[in-house]
């Protein structure tokens, strides 16, 4: 499964929400890989733990993070990604139920590329997720992968 090309890494602990998101992404489903907590998300992106064999040369075009993730929360994952040259440029979308202003502010503060509140109404939810998939997987030009060597830090 990890061998397949992953264009969208979805970190979402609620299986129902995951299912609704995948349902809404319909055609893009097989390009999505799902993890259920913050540790798994970081393991995946840094090829650690059960993802140790994953090629570092391949990064998803976008990471979608729920704010409330088990073990390591969404904001902490975002902070870790922004702190490492290997993952610094990966577009991150905070996809969450919360629209609290301070969460939105914190997301941008930590370097999120987008902050989207999951609408409660399913029609709007489906349309939102569909547009997000379309934008980040088709329209947006992904960043060239940065390497520690090139960055030199």
């Amino acid at each position: 499964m990890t061998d397949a090309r992953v264009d969208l890494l979805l970190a979402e602990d609620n299986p129902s929400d995951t299912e609704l998101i995948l349902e809404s992404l319909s055609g893009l489903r097989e390009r999505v890989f799902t993890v259920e907590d913050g540790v798994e998300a970081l393991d995946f992106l840094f090829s650690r733990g059960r993802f140790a064999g994953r090629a570092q040369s391949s990064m998803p075009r976008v990471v979608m993070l729920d704010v409330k993730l088990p073990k390591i929360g969404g904001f902490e994952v975002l902070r870790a990604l922004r702190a490492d040259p290997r993952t610094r440029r990966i577009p991150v979308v905070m996809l969450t139920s919360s629209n609290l202003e301070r969460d939105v502010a914190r997301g941008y503060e930590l370097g999120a590329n987008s902050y989207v509140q999951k609408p409660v109404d399913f029609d709007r939810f489906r349309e939102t997720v569909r547009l997000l998939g379309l934008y980040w997987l088709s329209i947006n030009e992904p960043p060239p992968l940065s390497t520690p060597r090139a960055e030199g830090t």
Partner: protein
Amino acid sequence: MTEPIDDRSLIRDLASGMTEAFLGALFAVRPDGTIIYWNSGAESLFGYSAAEVVGTSVFETIVPPEHVEDKRRWLAAALDGGSALYETVRRRKDGLRIWVDISVKAVRDNDGKAYLLLNERDVTRVKYQRDATVLQTRFREVLEAAPDAIVLVDSLGRITLVNSEAERLFGYTRGELLGQLVEELVPTRFHAQHRAHRTKYFAEPQTRPMGIGLELSGRRKDGTEFPVEISLSPLSIETSVLAMAAIRDVSARKKIEEALKSANHELEAFTYSVSHDLRAPIRQIDGFARILSEQLGPNIDEKSAHYLRRIQEGAGHMGRLVDDLLNLARIGRQDLKPRLVGLTAIVNETVVDLQSEVVGRDIQWQIDPLPTVYCDPGLMKVVFTNLLSNALKYSRPRAVSVVHVGCNGDRAEPTIYVRDNGVGFDMAYADKLFGVFQRLHRVEDFEGTGVGLATVQRIIHKHGGRIWAEATRDQGAAFYFTLNAPGAEHATEGA
């Protein structure tokens, strides 16, 4: 008249120590104030050793700078008159002012040079007890009638009078307090700060609260501390000025404030959790019901389709409830950002926003000129959005909906109203209108969550205003509100 004496024999005599036991502080100065003799009683009274002060001037040590002129005159008078008895203020080495009773005698040595012999006793406590008796006959009734602890302090920082409440609050008797430094009632760590503020206060005495923005503490006799609020006012008595401190124990209030703070904290955590966790299951119910109905396709039977619709309606309503409640909570916490705003502009803007809700309906708007008032424009928009959208909603059964926004009353306190020709309501339930989740109509007839008017009321209260409604069943309704001056925002609304 001064009589010449042999000064060496006098000094020997005085130094014998026997007289000191009776005399206390004894010292001798030349007419210019230079100290030529200083006994051990003087050392213990003023804190200076003989080695430190003999040969120096009293005007540099024990005479407070503010009294130098007086003391020079008194020395001169004593020289002329031969002897004098008086009470005055001295400064100790540690800076503390004390009251002394002085007996001074002019003497001459064999060469005819004059000396002054001074014998001094500390009468500070005695003096304050005595003065308090006089003050008390004048102020007792006023002081005892006050609900606060009252402490009068003179420019030396000493307590001149207290009332019974002060005795009770600090756990001292009147006798223990009179003549003490007021710092006795202040925790030690604030003493230096308090002394500095006290000196500044007497330089420019005026009525004011003490320590604005600071947490003030009092200290009881048993050493325990308690939070206080203090109001200071100057009190002129004859030629001197006293500071009158009215002290209130605010322990109980502080405790309530703490409890309120922690309750608010919990409420915020709850709101946060609602905003995160309650939305997800609502969306899931709605989402899976939708997917299921799509799955079943056009072949779905009538009953199943109906149930699925009911599920989705329920989910939708729950979603709106959560959003409205979060909005209400947010407005409760939000600080008012008032400025001068023309209400007409806000109403016009709101009318434009609401156009999409009334497509195909015949609406007759009447918007009178409205005043420019001091208010939070963002929140005022929420008020008009709710009131106008209610007017539109409840006038929906009419062929032509008439919505009238106007203003009554004088410029000082204008009353704004929104009136419609809708279905109105029974005035018997008018008191329920502004409660959260209170609805006077069935959801089947008029949709809504019952949070809108509660939100409106909270905003109006935050502005220090009032809101009320008048209606007749089937004859339309009118909502009136006033707005008050800024700064009143938390006067009526605790949350």
